[in-house]
């Protein structure tokens, strides 16, 4: 098979074409120009959002690092009083939470937002306003969350927040609520980012950049984003459960009323372990890209590496309970997770040896990135090996929850993510700065950080063997821990000195600029080193190899002269080329939205909404929530524009493609599908929670309401499903004419029916005496309805939005992107509603 979409690959031979007129560049500059002054805050271009995103995540790295130094001072000697007990407990909780949620995940996502469009030679990510929203939600929410530390309200239940310690009984303050708040933001921005990255990597690659030629970083980000979509729903659900238990006393985790604290651990770690790979894989992708430029040679084992990434993505979903070996899991169960933990080490080994082989096959330049990359391989290997050790149950039971684990996880995370990130800073800073960072200073920074890292964490293995548990604010004198802890503290300050020196390097050399760049200092071979402006590259090249810049020395000039795809702006607005997911064949030109204040407003009011709920200012919260929803709709209003006069445009070389598109080929369809996977995973996790609680406490289960009522609800949902289909059918029948009300009215009827059937479901359970506060069954059954309630509310809002658009004459026939999305979402709601209704009413009723 030579073509995926019917596109003739022979057309690629038309490129490079003639040199295109220079006036087109000026038009591109005008179209993509960023707003000036304060207006810059409304920018949505990835050059800005990506940079702010990286900078913010680095800020959180520094803040969490300062917390770590405070903790190390406290632990330098036994029974010190540098940090009082409750402050220390807040510090270590915040250190873990901020490092994992506000630094590591956003940092890799940020690097993705910044680098991916350039690496794929796209004009921008497919949903720039969504990126802006994700960033602002993270920025505002993250800072608000961190500030809880200054008023003594920071969470203190550990970054894993095990109930019942974090339940209302044992954590009555707002502290735990702030944790849930902070995590809420990162859930939003992570999911938004994942949608962006999946669609971006699969649909906006340069033509002919097939899956086999994609930069390893893009591969890693694709796997990363899919993992986020599958793993984050678990943490979304468990934070909802905990917040509802705390606020409304629904006993999900309370064993005295038929809940179970272990439910939290399963849900949390189902997210929590993939999370580690979510952090590591993108960094590994960066490593693969960097070893090629360090060794000046192709990556050895490119396909092995892809295999390793995909294998890791799958297997990492079978290791979550290795955090729970010490709970009362059956021994055979621990065996499954132990086996999967061994299996997941294989792909990691493949990657490490790919890097070593690549380095050996080329000539390694002694640069700062090379230092960090090699340091990372050594450190990550050591962390991986201790990981294999703790994968064995009997050994894990000895070192679990001791400083041995602290050492292990820091080796993995610093070696696997922080060192690669610093290597990446040095490698890619010249792309966004008019001056490169100092390579000489960089080596000093590396040696300080590398030495500091090992002096800090190597002794901790022994501290753990000596029996020092984790998460202790102090330890007793005379237990032999003193010298080791003092060594660790000294090491942490050496590490800190390295980072301080990096800040100095940044201050001295880093000058953010979108106009000029310091150039390809380390001579990378991928597309981000093409000459670029805010519009990315002048023209989008045809890709024939994995290192196009090495293989075609003239490519920079050819791209600059507009001799490839989209050398101009054929529709006169922001746009990018959408290509097919596997072979990257040009499909259509996507129109892109420009700067807008609405994503920023939506983010600020989302933050206001969650913050108000946390401090129990409910009225103000609702007010913020309404404005946030309005802002989102307002920003979407402009994204589905009526088509320009031209239905097809020339994208270069006389190749004509359509402008905008609906249905399975469209990027919006892909994004909606990803979103439905997220919602489906949340529902799936809730089903797991239901079955789990039933398995643990079947004695609190009562008989369900009558079958007739169940049939009525299911029937109503079926009618709703039919209505969504009828609405689209009518719209199609009106081809060429005016849409009229019928299509959207049918969607509205569907949404209202769904609301009605949910109401029936709820009153049915209430009539037989089930109350959410009384038992684990009540809590989880009503929780299923809460989840359904959420999608029903969104359905109602969507139907109303569709009505507005129709009133403004924006409902185009025969197909329309907004209609498409609304109808599909409501149909999804009907299916989810049916499933969630049937589960408790039919299965194991009593």
């Amino acid at each position: 098979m030579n073509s995926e979409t019917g596109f003739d690959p022979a057309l690629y031979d038309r490129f490079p074409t003639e040199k295109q007129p220079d006036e087109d560049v000026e038009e591109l500059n005008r179209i993509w120009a960023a707003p000036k002054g304060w207006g810059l805050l409304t920018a949505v271009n990835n050059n800005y959002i990506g940079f702010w995103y990286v900078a913010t995540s680095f800020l959180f790295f520094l803040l969490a690092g300062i917390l770590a130094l405070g903790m190390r001072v406290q632990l330098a000697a036994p029974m010190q009083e540098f940090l009082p007990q409750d402050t220390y407990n807040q510090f270590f909780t915040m250190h873990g939470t901020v490092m994992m949620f506000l630094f590591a995940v956003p940092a890799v996502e940020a690097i993705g937002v910044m680098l991916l469009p350039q690496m794929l030679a796209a004009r921008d990510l497919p949903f720039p306003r969504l990126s802006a929203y994700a960033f602002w939600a993270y920025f505002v929410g993250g800072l608000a969350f961190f500030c809880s530390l200054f008023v003594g309200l920071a969470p203190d239940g550990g970054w894993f927040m095990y109930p019942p310690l974090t339940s209302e009984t044992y954590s009555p303050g707002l502290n735990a609520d702030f944790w849930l708040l902070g995590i809420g933001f990162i859930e939003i921005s992570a999911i938004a980012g994942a949608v962006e990255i999946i669609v971006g990597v699969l649909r906006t690659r340069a033509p002919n950049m097939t899956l086999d030629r994609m930069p390893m970083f893009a591969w890693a980000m694709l796997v990363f984003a899919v993992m986020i979509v599958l793993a984050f729903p678990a943490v979304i659900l468990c934070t909802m459960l905990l917040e509802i238990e705390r606020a409304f006393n629904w006993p999900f985790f309370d064993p005295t009323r038929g809940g179970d604290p272990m439910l939290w651990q399963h849900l949390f770690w189902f997210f929590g372990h993939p999370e580690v790979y979510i952090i590591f894989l993108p960094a590994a992708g960066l490593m693969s890209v960097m070893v090629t430029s360090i060794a000046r040679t192709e990556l050895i084992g490119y396909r092995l590496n892809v295999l390793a990434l995909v294998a890791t993505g799958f297997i990492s979903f079978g290791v979550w309970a290795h955090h729970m070996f010490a709970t009362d899991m059956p021994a055979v169960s621990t065996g499954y997770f132990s086996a999967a933990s061994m299996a997941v080490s294989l792909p990691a080994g493949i990657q490490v040896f790919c890097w070593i082989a690549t380095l050996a096959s080329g000539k390694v330049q002694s640069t700062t990135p090379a230092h960090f990359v090699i340091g990372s391989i050594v450190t990550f290997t050591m962390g991986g090996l201790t990981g294999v050790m703790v994968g064995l149950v009997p050994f894990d039971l000895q070192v679990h929850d001791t400083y041995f684990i602290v050492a292990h996880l820091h080796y993995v995370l610093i070696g696997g993510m922080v060192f690669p990130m610093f290597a990446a800073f040095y490698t890619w800073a010249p792309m966004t700065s008019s001056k490169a960072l100092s390579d000489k200073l960089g080596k000093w920074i590396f040696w300080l950080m590398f030495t500091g890292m090992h002096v800090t964490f190597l002794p901790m293995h022994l501290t753990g063997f000596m029996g020092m548990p984790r998460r202790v604010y102090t330890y007793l004198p005379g237990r032999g821990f003193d010298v080791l802890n003092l060594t660790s503290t000294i090491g942490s300050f050496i590490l800190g000195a390295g980072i301080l020196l990096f800040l100095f390097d940044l201050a001295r050399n880093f000058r953010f600029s979108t106009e000029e760049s310091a150039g390809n200092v380390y001579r990378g071979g991928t597309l981000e080193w093409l000459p670029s402006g805010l519009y990315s590259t002048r023209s989008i090249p045809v890709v024939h190899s994995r290192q196009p810049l090495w293989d075609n020395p003239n490519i920079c000039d050819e791209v600059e002269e507009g001799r490839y795809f989209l050398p101009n702006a054929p529709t006169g607005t922001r746009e990018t080329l959408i290509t097919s997911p596997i072979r990257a064949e040009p499909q259509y030109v996507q129109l892109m939205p420009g700067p807008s204040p609405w994503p920023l407003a939506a983010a600020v009011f989302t933050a206001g909404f969650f913050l108000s709920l946390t401090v129990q200012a409910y009225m103000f919260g609702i007010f913020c929530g309404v404005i946030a929803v309005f802002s989102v709709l307002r920003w979407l209003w402009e994204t589905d524009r009526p088509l320009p006069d031209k239905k097809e445009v020339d994208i270069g070389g006389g190749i004509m493609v359509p402008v905008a598109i609906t249905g399975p080929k469209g990027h919006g369809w892909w994004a909606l599908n990803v979103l439905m996977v997220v919602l489906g995973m949340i529902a799936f996790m809730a089903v797991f929670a239901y079955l789990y609680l039933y398995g643990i406490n079947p004695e609190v289960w009562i008989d369900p309401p009558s079958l007739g009522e169940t049939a009525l609800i299911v029937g109503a949902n079926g009618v709703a499903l039919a209505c969504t289909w009828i609405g689209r059918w009518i719209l199609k029948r009106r081809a060429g004419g005016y849409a009229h009300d019928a299509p959207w009215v049918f969607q509205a009827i569907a949404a209202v029916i769904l609301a009605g059937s949910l109401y029936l479901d709820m009153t049915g359970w209430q009539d037989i005496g089930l109350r959410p506060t009384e038992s684990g069954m009540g809590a989880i059954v009503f929780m299923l309805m809460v989840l359904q309630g959420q999608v029903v509310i969104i359905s109602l809002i969507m139907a109303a939005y569709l009505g507005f658009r129709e009133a403004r004459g924006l409902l185009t026939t025969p197909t329309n992107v907004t209609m498409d999305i609304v109808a599909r979402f409501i149909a999804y709601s009907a299916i989810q509603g049916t499933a969630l209704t049937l589960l408790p009413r039919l299965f194991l009723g009593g």
Partner: protein
Amino acid sequence: MIDALWGWPPPVLDPAGPYSERVTILAWVLLAMALVVTLIVVIALWIAVKGPDSLKRKLGGEKTVWIGGIAFPGVVLSVLLVWGLMMTGSLSEPITGKEMRIRVVGEMWWFRVQYLDNQGRVVMDGANEIHIPTNVPVVLELTSADVIHSFWVPHLSGKKDMIPGRVTLLRIEADRPGVFGGVCAEYCGGPHALMGFVTVAHEPEEWKQWAVQRNIALGEAIEPFGSVDVAGALPVVDDDVPPRIPPTPIVGEAARGRALFMSVGCAACHRVAGTEANGLAGPDLTHVGSRRTLGAGILPNHLGTMMGWIGDSQAIKPGIRMPSYDRLPAEDIAAMAMWLEQQK
């Protein structure tokens, strides 16, 4: 003292019983494996970066990945997995129900210890100190009264979580007499760092004496330390056993201390068998005078430390639920401490 229990040699590598011993062998093998693999990677990196061209050429190909990244780890991981699973199996052999049973309840932030008879009834209460005979497998019934804790005596066995609403079982066995420290390993808020206990392993004869001293009448029909059957090492006690008489006569200051203990509020949280003190919130103090530690394994136990603990426990272990009795005159505290120290 418990101080001596930690430090060198590391308890994880210094087994005192059959369960921890096998884990120790595994630990040494794993450490050796980690060291060897790290060396291999470091040498390979050195060759890749600085090594002679001939070696570099050998290393710089996909073959390296097949050997170093697939075949070698595959073999090592498979062997380790099989060994680890077999050990998991042998360490979790089913509990016969004939083992000696002790219930340990995690509380914020101490351990309640209850010795059970073979019917599962509590025959003696204690806190933060577990006495076991050597060479007898002991099954601990672990649970929690509030949040999740974790029980860990590194010399004897791996750890096991104490989960509210559940009873988890952990088997321990000591093969030499000694005093082994333990801690709570799961973060449980507040002064989690200062939540410890001691496990004392006695020679069987000595343990029997210890039990007899505590007025636990050993039934005639049961010989707890016979060669095979250790069922119900603590025998059935009739429900109508008369309350234990405190061993020392109450005279002078101690008598005043006893009266104070009952009147100033201690009795509301603490129980001393044979007296009207019947509180259940705090540790049982029936035998407090004979315990090795105070404050959940953190202080030695004698008259002086007892006074300091009663007078200002918050200064020693901040955040605990026992208030500092710093309003009381020192003489009163001394009297109470004297009486408590007599509760052997």
